[in-house]
């Protein structure tokens, strides 16, 4: 497990130095390629479609706020952002709670079949969600869950659980036995130990799995595409896709909508970058 390998080793003796010009040239080039299209889209939202058609690579002249204003006031942007948020938060909460409960048992109880149960969960890592989408749709249809938040949340939780358990279990196992004994002497039950000791101690891992589940849910497209045909339930990725195919001639409007849809992910990511990187890394090294 290398969750904290994302952080620079705290040597202290070494000063962070300026890199060589080559380092900076390279870093700058890569960063520019990564971010230029995104900046272009955001800036393009401040132009008018005729401006864009006349000079695709130009700058706004004059600056127009109209596209953004239009998207924010006349489109379903807010409704879709709300739907995305509900689904992402619901998924995250359920993944963390169910994953923690299961991982706690797998880490701190000894019983027959424990390793079998763990393997059973890890098998899920080999089940690609994409492949299951058709039977999943049929099943949700039979359960009358189509066009509800649950139709997205429940499968997302199910497919996130294996990874969550793989990340959380070693964390919970690593809590020293002495702490559990001490808690027992203080009169805490095993569940009390989970609530008052194990959970606070494994907060970094919980944040990691939570962030991973949230981002995956926020960006997911295939499952909502199939199970949310009701426009009022559409999430942002569906909204971006619809808006762009509905207003094909309104390039500036599409650029504005796309930028606004990017914004929450970018903000969230800036805040949680360490957890995302750490999680992605730590996850696979279980």
């Amino acid at each position, binding site marked *: 497990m290398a969750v904290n390998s994302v952080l620079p080793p705290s040597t202290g003796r070494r000063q962070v130095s300026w890199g060589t010009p080559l380092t900076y040239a390279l870093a700058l080039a890569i960063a520019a390629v990564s971010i230029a299209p995104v900046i272009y889209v955001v800036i393009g939202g401040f132009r008018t479609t005729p401006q864009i058609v006349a000079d695709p690579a130009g700058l706004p002249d004059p600056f127009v706020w109209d596209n953004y204003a239009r998207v924010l006031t006349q489109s379903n942007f807010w409704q879709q952002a709300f739907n995305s948020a509900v689904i992402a938060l619901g998924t995250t909460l359920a993944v963390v709670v169910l994953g923690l409960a299961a991982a706690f048992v797998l880490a701190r109880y000894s019983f027959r079949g424990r390793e079998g149960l763990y393997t059973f969960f890890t098998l899920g890592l080999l089940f690609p969600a994409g492949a299951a989408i058709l*039977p999943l749709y049929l099943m949700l249809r039979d359960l009358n869950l189509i066009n509800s938040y649950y139709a997205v949340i429940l499968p997302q939780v199910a497919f996130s659980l294996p990874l969550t358990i793989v990340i959380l279990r070693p964390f919970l196992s690593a809590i020293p036995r002495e702490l559990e004994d001490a808690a027992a002497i203080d009169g805490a039950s095993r569940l009390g130990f989970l609530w008052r000791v194990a959970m606070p101690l494994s907060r970094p891992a919980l944040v990691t799995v939570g962030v991973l589940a949230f981002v995956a849910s926020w960006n997911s497209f*295939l499952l909502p595409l199939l199970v949310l045909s009701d426009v009022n339930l559409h999430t942002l990725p569906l909204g971006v896709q619809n808006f762009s195919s509905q207003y094909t001639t309104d390039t500036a409007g599409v650029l504005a909508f796309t930028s606004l849809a990017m914004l929450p992910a970018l903000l969230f990511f800036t805040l949680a970058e360490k957890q995302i990187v750490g999680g992605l890394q730590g996850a696979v090294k279980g």
Partner: protein
Amino acid sequence: MTSANQIRMPAGGASASPAGPRRGGHDSARRADNRRKWYEIIGLTTPAVLIYVMFVLVPMGFAVYYSLFRWRGVGPPTEFVGLRNYTLAFQDPIFLDALRNNALIVFGSLLIQGPIALGVALLLNRRFRGRAVFRLLVFVPYVLAEVTVGIMWKLLLTGDGTVDALLRSLGMGGLVQAWLADLDVVIWTLLAILTWKYVGFAIILLLAGLSNVPDELTEAAAIDGASWWQIQRHVTIPLLGPTIRIWMFLSMIGSLQIFDMIWVTSVPAVRSLGASATMATYMVDNGFFARLWGYGNAVAVILFVISFVAALLFQRFLLRRDIEGAITGRAK
């Protein structure tokens, strides 16, 4: 994040505490405690087990069942056709195109992103001012939804759009293509977009892996007179092995399932001709939208088997040491 250190400690079996008798030695108290322990085990794991079985395992079972029928999705399937859907799939040139495209994306991603990411990571493998900002910027494409990225590039690549204008202004107008409409070009365009989106992820992962390589080793090699390249070749890259293999694994599984970006970027007409179809888009086009549910489920099973076998083979031969704990259930 200091407590993240704990994650380095040995995991699993050995350190897990047996929930034995707490205090006193009374048999009845012990039995009561034992019973309570089982209640807790069942109570805490059941919700996760139920939801996992119901939405991960059961659907794949149903897919196998439905795939044996010719079925339009209404009422229970009745027209049993055996393995006909599978043979049909492998006889459909569009599906074979989809397979070829998936293979191209799998290997194209590995062969293009791998060397770029490795090169960049090695050259940037030192802490310099602004590295945190760099990391943040490079990671941006990865965090955006594939759908958003797809729409964005679709706009940039429209005929006489931004990319074309840029190429012309750089005097490279001869390179201009019908990026997303030319049947011979579209899959390469898509591969380029995927490279743009995912190479940052590879760089970040490798940079993080590099920060685990002890400076002492490379310093020792330098003192022994090794050149920069020799150090990279014989010290750093071998130590980076696990990170590289894990990245390859993630990239491969992702490429096999690729859907969102392809779906929004390439128009249905181009997709239906096979030029840009992947297994997943083919499955959804046929199963969901054309309502050939039996056939679609057969494609789902094929996709599943290919991914599963690829994952198992990869693990068996390359990844064994790295995630042994996760898959075999034995902690490292």
